[in-house]
């Protein structure tokens, strides 16, 4: 039982409808799905599918990540940043409004993160994503390079105790995988087995819980109302 916080439906560039994804997620034993949309798009209304559906707003911009994240903080359950460029990655890590930095090593010849960014991510509780689709779609040399970059990022995350989230980033239901399988990838990238399993269970659950409490007005800086 775990969460996959990065999935696209057919309304946001994916292949399958929300109901199909939710049905398949149930088969795979997932507890919740994060339905990604661009931050400029409207929030989707989720029907009752028997699975916990989370609204994930993805910021795709080159500048002013912190400002955009602050502005939409109350409009989405999770705020993620479309990474890849070093400056974007760094801004996302240094923002306290951002929850997840997606694929920091996308289309790069290096890992996209350095010790300064990862330390900042740990301080601001921004989680770094392990993107399964990137591994799945790459082949031979490309896959070896991506795994190498991800390993480097995981080494830094382990050192600075930064949160890591493993997601499938699937555009189709056939790219989705169960939580334990995604955790196995995080384990092979260098995390301890317990920590790797947390990347699809405890950490995403915690992010969702805290943000929902904040949205419901039950939580301020370090204070929770029961």
């Amino acid at each position, binding site marked *: 039982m775990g969460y996959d916080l990065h999935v696209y439906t057919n309304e946001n560039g994916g292949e399958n409808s929300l109901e199909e994804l939710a049905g*398949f997620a149930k*088969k*795979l*034993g997932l507890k919740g799905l994060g339905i990604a949309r661009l931050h400029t798009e409207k929030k989707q209304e989720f029907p009752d599918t028997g699975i916990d559906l989370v609204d994930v707003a993805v910021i795709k911009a080159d500048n002013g990540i912190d400002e955009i994240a602050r502005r939409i903080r109350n409009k989405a359950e999770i705020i993620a940043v479309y990474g890849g460029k070093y400056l974007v990655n760094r801004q996302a890590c240094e923002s306290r409004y951002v929850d997840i930095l997606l694929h920091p090593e996308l289309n790069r010849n290096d890992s996209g993160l350095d010790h300064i960014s990862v330390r900042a991510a740990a301080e601001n509780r921004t989680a770094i994503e392990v993107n*399964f689709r990137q*591994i*799945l779609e790459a082949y*031979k040399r490309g896959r070896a390079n991506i795994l190498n970059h991800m390993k480097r990022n995981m080494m830094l995350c382990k050192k600075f105790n930064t949160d890591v989230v493993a997601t499938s980033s699937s555009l*189709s239901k*056939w*790219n*989705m*995988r*169960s939580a*334990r*399988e*995604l955790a*196995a*990838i995080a*384990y*092979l990238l260098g995390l301890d*087995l317990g920590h790797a399993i947390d990347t699809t269970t405890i950490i995403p659950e915690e992010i969702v819980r805290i943000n929902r409490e904040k949205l419901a007005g039950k939580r301020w800086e370090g204070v929770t109302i029961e």
Partner: protein
Amino acid sequence: MDARFEPRPKTLPPSMRTKGRYLIFEIFSENPVEYQEIRESFWNSITNFLGELGTSDAHPIILKNLYDPKSQRGVIKCRHDMVEQIRTSLVLVSMIGESRAVVRIDGVTGTIKSARNKYLGMRDLRSFK
């Protein structure tokens, strides 16, 4: 001489044998898939991901007689310290034969007997005391 009567080395004592683990897998696919197609795609994925040296370390064996084409569930054996590597290799399978597929690992056991009893539902009267 008939190959059946060829002298063979004795089976090693249990303490000297390499420990194995049995991964019970389940396949979700667009169309029903055959055992041969599964075997081919699993081997491709494992050798691509782990390389020849890693594959020889993991020593994977897909158990043909335990594959059930109806439920599309089966068992793959590997070395006990290579379970996560094999699990990840199977995660990377996206096509089996001509159809898109997803492989899910239902569980890992230490013996074939417990794999049959717990996951494949192959119980007999001896299972009940």
